[in-house]
């Protein structure tokens, strides 16, 4: 790794080695501003017959060379550094989720407490959590041991007990893991890494129980007290072991690790990193989603607290059948304004599952796919809400006033009314033929309340920027603001329910060229143009029983930002209630599709 000061860095090459595609971007300092300038991609090459990740990286970089006219690789295929004129780059950084990403098993004493903290640490570090073992998870010990035997994780995170708390139960977990002898995914001879981040008083006994057969690393307790989570040391150790063990055993990564100027990060960890930085700098509550073919990742930063969940089997191709199985086909059909043959749809879903790279050719096929996306996003969001909770087990001091507004520990911290920015990415959102469709899918699935800005990650460069932020935060944040997000607009949606056709709210939008005002009725939404870069004062006067963010029935005044879609005034109610029967929902969907003009240019 070369050490260069930020002032010396003008040309940055960043790659994200995904499980199917390696994406390369070029960032250049132009006139004192960092901008993302070119992008190239190539198939990832960790699988046989090529089995060397750097081949895919080189191919993606070659595409960048062709597009940009900048020579980045020399005759031997090595990166040219530093940049001089139209040649080379100053630094190279990369993330990776190839080869199935980082797969972990976590264990803790109580599922809702230390095990949940361990899960948060693993997810936050970018891992896929294969299973959570806890002494109270309702499985009998032999079932848990059997499960541990079957899993082939890359590493295990063992936690449990606050410092000074239970020793017995923590040692018991170690006693389950030791005889189960889980085998690592890579290499017969390789010792499985276990990170112990539990009660520090139990550490010597855990070490003795696990013995020599594991590569044990002991870090400070991730839940030293019930009131406190300390996930940093465990996360850092996960990253270290990811590089030392997992990456070192993946094909070609030894070379990649020599190329990079900053440690390779797991892709989701990098996304979390950039979102946290942005939320912190701008004081926002942010929700991000990346819907892929196999999985859907949801990230949130609320009041500075970061959470990430991976819905392992909710996706738009490999996992599309599972979305239908979990949500139910009837639930999906409610989002469709047309009548469709369910038997044929079921076969269509399975055919997409087994041939995941196909794309919708007809309009009804697209409408169906976007209906599935709404349910995949809704389910992933629901899982995220259940996971992103305040610490369970915390004793709360209450005053007399609190008796009337008691909040239990363990409640979700995701408040759709306080959400400032909703960011979507992933094929079905990024590549929708019209951005109106992207906005509609996000609104229907996440149901933001009050006033929320909507954006999509233009080419999914958050991973690149997340790892870049570690070496050049200024460049990463500048590119994030200028090039990463495409703002779709703003959604204003009061919370409440009412009789369809009655008044939901009045609005007054102060545009540069005049005032636009009107009424939005219950069961209706209005899509008003408000272009990218435009901002306008908006006043909302909700009807009685409706809350736009200032309290029930109280007017709200704010500045709304435009985008490629504009301003969406949503009077359909929160939560959004659709008839259970698709036949009854159909006319309603038809009305909403027409009001939004979702498929107007295609139909």
């Amino acid at each position: 790794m070369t050490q260069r000061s930020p002032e010396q860095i003008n040309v940055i090459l960043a790659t994200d080695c995904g499980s199917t595609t390696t994406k390369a971007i070029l960032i250049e300092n132009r006139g004192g501003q960092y901008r993302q300038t070119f992008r190239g991609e190539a198939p990832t090459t960790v699988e046989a017959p090529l089995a060397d990740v750097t081949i895919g990286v080189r191919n993606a970089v070659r595409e960048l060379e062709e597009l940009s006219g900048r020579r980045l690789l020399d005759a031997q295929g090595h990166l040219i550094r530093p940049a001089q004129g139209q040649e080379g780059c100053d630094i190279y950084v990369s993330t990776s989720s190839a080869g199935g990403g980082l797969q972990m098993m976590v264990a803790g004493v109580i599922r809702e407490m230390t095990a949940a903290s361990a899960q948060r640490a693993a997810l936050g570090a970018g891992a896929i959590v294969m299973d959570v073992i806890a002494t109270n998870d309702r499985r009998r010990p032999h079932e848990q041991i059997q499960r541990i035997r079957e899993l082939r994780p890359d590493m295990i995170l063992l936690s449990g007990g606050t410092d000074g708390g239970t020793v017995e139960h923590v040692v018991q977990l170690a006693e389950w893991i030791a005889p189960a002898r889980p085998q690592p995914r890579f290499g017969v001879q390789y010792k499985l890494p276990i990170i112990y981040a539990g009660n520090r008083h139990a550490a010597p006994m855990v070490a003795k129980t696990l013995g020599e057969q594991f590569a044990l690393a002991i870090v400070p307790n991730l839940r030293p007290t019930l009131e406190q989570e300390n996930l940093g040391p465990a996360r850092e150790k996960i990253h270290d072991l990811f590089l030392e063990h997992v990456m070192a055993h993946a094909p070609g990564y030894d070379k990649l690790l020599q190329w990079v100027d900053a440690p390779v990060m797991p892709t989701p960890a990098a996304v979390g990193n950039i979102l946290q930085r942005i939320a912190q700098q701008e004081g926002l509550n942010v929700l991000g989603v990346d819907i892929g073919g196999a999985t859907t990742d949801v990230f949130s930063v609320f009041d500075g607290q970061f959470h990430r969940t991976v819905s392992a089997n909710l996706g738009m191709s490999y996992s599309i059948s599972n979305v239908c199985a979990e949500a139910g086909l009837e639930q999906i059909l409610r989002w469709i304004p047309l009548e469709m043959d369910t038997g044929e749809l079921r076969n269509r879903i399975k055919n997409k599952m087994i041939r995941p790279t196909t794309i919708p050719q007809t309009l009804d096929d697209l409408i169906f796919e976007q209906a599935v996306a709404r349910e995949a996003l809704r389910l992933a969001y629901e899982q995220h809400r259940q996971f992103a909770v305040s610490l369970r087990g915390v004793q709360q001091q209450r005053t007399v006033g609190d008796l009337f507004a008691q909040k239990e520990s363990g409640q979700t911290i995701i408040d759709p009314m306080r959400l400032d920015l909703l960011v979507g990415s992933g094929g079905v959102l990024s590549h929708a033929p019209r951005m109106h469709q992207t906005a509609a899918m996000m609104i229907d699935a996440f149901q933001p309340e009050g006033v929320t800005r909507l954006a999509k990650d233009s080419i999914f460069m958050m991973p690149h920027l997340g790892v870049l932020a570690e070496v050049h935060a200024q460049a990463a944040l500048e590119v994030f603001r200028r090039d990463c997000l495409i703002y779709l607009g703003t959604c204003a949606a009061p919370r409440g329910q009412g009789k369809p056709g009655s008044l939901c709210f009045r609005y007054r939008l102060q545009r540069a060229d005049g005032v636009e005002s009107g009424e939005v009725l219950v069961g209706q939404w209005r899509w008003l143009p408000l272009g990218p870069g435009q901002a306008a004062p908006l006043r909302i006067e909700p009807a009685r029983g409706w809350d736009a963010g200032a309290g029930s029935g109280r007017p709200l005044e704010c500045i709304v930002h435009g985008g490629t879609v504009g301003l969406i005034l949503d009077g359909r109610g929160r939560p959004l209630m659709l008839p259970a029967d698709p036949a009854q929902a159909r006319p309603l969907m038809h009305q909403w599709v027409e009001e939004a003009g979702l498929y107007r240019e295609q139909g």
Partner: protein
Amino acid sequence: MTQAYTPGLKLARRIRHRVCRRLPMAGEVLVQVGQQVSAQQVVARTWLPGEVTLVNAAHRLGVEPAEVPGLMQVQVGQPVQAGQLLAQTRGLFGLFRSQLLAPTSGVIESISGVTGQVILRGPPQPIEQLAYLAGRVTEVLPAEGVWIEAEAALVQGIFGVGGEAYGPIRLACPGPDTPLTPDRLDESMRGAVVVGGGRVSTQALQRASQLGVSAIVTGGIDDQDLRQFLGYDLGVAITGSESLGLTLILTEGFGEIAMQQRCWQLLASHEGQLASVNGATQIRAGVIRPEVVIPLHDLAQTTQASSIKTDRVGDSTPSESPSGGTALPVGAGAGGPTLQVGSLVRIIRTPYFGLVGRVTDLPSMPQVLPSGVKTRVAEVQLPDGRRLIVPRANLEWIEES
């Protein structure tokens, strides 16, 4: 991305097929390099550590965990029989002793003075790796497994359920578009790999199961029929571990769809010959497709034949195949196939799902589809003369030999 279409499944009349048969953990390899093996011969074996039984000794004896080690009548590493005394308390003046008996036979693995638990390990269970491919052992991976090679005909399916199975090939349908119905199955098909044609019904699968058919290979199935057969709705295409007593391989997909003519002809030409099949499918990175492998004869006898076929085998590194083995790519060359004007293709998405035709044009500029999606397309002419515009991503290349 230069390849915006799906390369086809492998369909080879004769290739040099290699499979790697690895144990999940270190063990013993039972064969040697150069040895001929049959498909169901055990080539490697290991012992999985026995089941673990936890005994909460402290609780059962009514003592503190720390007291347990001192009360044990047996030591770590000692074998015990079910019902044998493991520990007992001292009691009051030698009376009222609590006893702890072994709930099962095994070896004492650990005695914990922290949790008061005793762990009993049961007898080890053997894990045997069969050869799967009848052929010659070409390499031994010490303590891990072997590589086996043979000349074989190979058919890859698009999707399957159920694991490895063996049997002679039997045709149940007169042609590739005939649905596989229960009346086409009979007692003589017990233990056979039955080749159907078009869609298979639940009733036919149930009848095949009752008859003891080893595997069914056919064109398609309705999602609803698969659900009934499995007993649940399949969420992700990661299969192979189902215990159905019958392996099912689909060559085309879901719905009313005939088996591709060339595939059916190849299977039909091997009627009566022994085949190894595997329904295991993994549609993720590192894709695994189900397969039918029909060993032709052993390599020693066909050295000349295989050397003649070298140009079809290609020189790329072997890739993993469904059996955990390796199939050398055929015909495609190291760079993979390229879609060209004249290529035979199958359309793999609605509204033309299943139709086969030839590419007549490959416009270089992306086009906007009726869905609004802008993408690169191909013009495909069907046998009836119709010309269709189809996204390249919705085409599957059919290899012609």
